[in-house]
């Protein structure tokens, strides 16, 4: 809109305020940068990986880092850097996709329960409570054993666990917001429920959701790595960081680099995500923006 004739002063929205605060947090920026780097590398892997994925060199066997193989090779002579890059594609994909699944289901479920309230809310949250009480770790192990290690199933299974907390958070947010007077004002203006949800509730509920999403991705990645380590997650010929770590653990006495580098990749990514998540939580803390 052109407010050209009145010399309108620039306003600072809460998002801009939060971004400004985030930029001051060096750890969070570091996390964002590292994450960006890893994601870019994962997307571009087929083009930038130094060796072909399955290029074996059995005569070479496992060698420590060298000029030709920056991170060394595994017992089949495969370049470790390449392995880590391809493994990263899978690990990051599982992290983001499963979290996205959880996000969509959880946010919708929580928003509906929170907004409608009453019996609908009671029933929906009772379902969440019961599902929450089930020991999921055990079930996922079971599912993976029983139905084979299907990547899609893995996404769904992990997503199915994480959506519960997301739903609880969203419901809590929506319930709290619904009592706020600006929502009552919106109702008294005559706005439709859809518009109220879209324009008034969702933007104000996003803060904790964003934070929680950023912190869910690492816990999903940990879950995938855990399953792969036990032999219940990703299977060869695909690879993931969890799988690489489990191989590395087997031969760690003779070839420690096979354990250390994949471990470093996973841990660094988790650090990055956690720093970013913490930084977002501090930046988006609405209490600080009030006078």
């Amino acid at each position: 809109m052109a407010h050209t004739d009145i010399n309108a002063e620039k306003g600072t929205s809460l998002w801009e305020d939060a971004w400004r605060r985030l930029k001051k947090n060096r750890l969070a920026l570091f996390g964002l940068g590292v994450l960006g780097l890893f994601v870019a590398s994962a997307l571009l892997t087929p083009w930038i990986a130094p060796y072909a994925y399955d290029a074996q060199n059995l005569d070479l066997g496992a060698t420590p880092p060298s000029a030709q193989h920056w991170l060394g090779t595994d017992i089949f002579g495969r370049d470790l850097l390449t392995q880590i890059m391809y493994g990263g594609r899978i690990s990051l994909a599982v992290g983001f996709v499963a979290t996205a699944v959880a996000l969509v289901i959880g946010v919708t479920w929580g928003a509906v329960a929170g907004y409608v309230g009453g019996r609908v809310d009671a029933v929906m949250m009772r379902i969440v409570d019961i599902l929450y009480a089930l020991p999921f770790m055990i079930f996922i192990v079971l599912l993976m054993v029983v139905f084979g290690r299907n990547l899609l199933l893995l996404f769904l299974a992990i997503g199915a666990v994480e959506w519960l907390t997301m739903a609880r958070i969203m419901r809590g947010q929506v319930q709290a917001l619904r009592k706020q007077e600006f929502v009552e004002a919106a109702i008294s203006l005559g706005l439709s429920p859809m518009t109220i949800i879209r324009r008034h509730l969702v933007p104000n509920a996003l803060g904790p959701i964003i934070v929680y999403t950023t912190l869910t991705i690492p816990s999903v990645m940990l879950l995938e790595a855990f399953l792969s380590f036990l032999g219940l997650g990703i299977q060869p010929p695909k690879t993931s960081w969890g799988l690489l770590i489990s191989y590395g653990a087997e031969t760690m006495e003779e070839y420690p680099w096979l354990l250390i580098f994949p471990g470093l990749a996973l841990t660094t990514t988790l650090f990055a995500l956690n720093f970013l998540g913490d930084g977002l939580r501090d930046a988006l803390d609405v209490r600080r923006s009030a006078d």
Partner: protein
Amino acid sequence: MNLLEVQDLQVDFNTRNGHTIAVNKISFTVKKGEITAIIGESGSGKSVACYSLLGLLPQPPASIESGTALFDGRDLLTLSESELRQIRGRDIAMIFQDPMTCLNPYMTIGDQLIEPLVFHKKVSKADALARAKELLVEVGIRDPDATINNFPHEFSGGMRQRVMIAMALINEPKLLIADEPTTALDVTIQAQILKLVADLQKKRDIGVIFISHDLAVVADIADHIIVMEKGLVVEQGDSTGIFTEAKHPYTQKLLAAIPSDTKVSALHDPKPLVQVENLKTYFNTGSTVVKAVDDVSFEINRGEIVGLVGESGSGKSTIGRSILRLLPITSGQIRLDGQDLTTLDSGTLKRTRRRMQMIFQDPYASLNPRMSVYDTLAEPLLLHNIESRRTVEQAVLKLMDDVGLARAFIRKYPHEFSGGQRQRIAIGRALATKPEFIVADEPVSALDVTIQAQILDLMLDLGKQYGLTMLFVSHDLAVVRHIADRIIVLYHGKIVETGTSESLFNAPQEAYTKSLLASIPGRNRLAS
């Protein structure tokens, strides 16, 4: 004799927002046996000054830059933390504003009461409990044996504040600092607590510092008044002097802001615009039914301002929200201009909403923090097709003019404004659709006293300009008397009494009305 002598006290704050001087070289004295009130609005530094005396300010971000505070021959500001701890709770005690959050919810009243005694005077637990019970009786709690073992959440606000007072006095301190102790309480309870503090002060002959934002509250009990504005003491003197011949313009402004007149209704030919008949709104909370509004009937005439007065739990807010169809009602009829609002279909209801709007109490919570002034004011105009996308900006600017907001602020967000400015935005939003009827739910209760007066005047002016009919909900009788033509008094969901402002104030009929009127703070001191 001087109990406390403060000279040139300066306290600075260093936060992420910059460096501010909260208390700017102030000097004052507190005499033994007197109640000294420190009055100021938000940002005046009144609380900061007193907290710094006891070292209760977190330093950083605060820092005491200069000054002396002589108490009992020692300078409090130079004492070490362990020396200060000897004084806190023993020689100088404090009570705070919100007794719910100021008492530990996880400990019994008894455990908290005896702490200062056990710690400072090394009294045994049994003796301390006995002493605590004596004090509970002294502050007006009739059944101390039961109270001792209960938790804070089991009591009302007034009782909790009595407990806080008992806890502060248990070690017989020489000086009591009370930081807004009645601000969070209902008006009748406030009157009781004020009387209690005054009585205890006389009985024990101690010095009291009473911090408040409201001159009226301290009018009847303060001996000496100190007025602060933006970190400076602008005036101080004995109460009579302050109230009869205040010298500083700020003090005069504070005095002028206390509504003390009664509106004389000039309404002729009253025609009802809003009719409420046998309204009942009950809430089901698990096992009990709360009768928030219990068979209430009244009318509001065109052009009238009706004041709806009551304490917490009276149902006044529920009535306002019921009329505006923000709450489902249990039974009864609500008519706007003859049309029954309870039976409308959603399409007609949406159109009808244009004619009735609400102004809420908390100016921060009533604005969407993610929408700019433009967004907030344009929303109703665009929704009801009053303006098109091309013409709406001019309409928004005109609204801003009407409510006294500078046009240059149009792109700013709520958190960039003060409380008074935010309330102006909220008023602008309510007026956007040119409604006929407005419900104002405690619209000035959350604002500073001087800003209250401005907003009330604004509402009266706009009321005339737009030809508004208003239902003004409030717990503050002085405000209601000043602005309303007629008043309805509510108690526990039922109407107790109604009448014009004049008749209600000069000749109240019901006992509850009389006790409400008797509780208006400062009525003895301030001429009506």
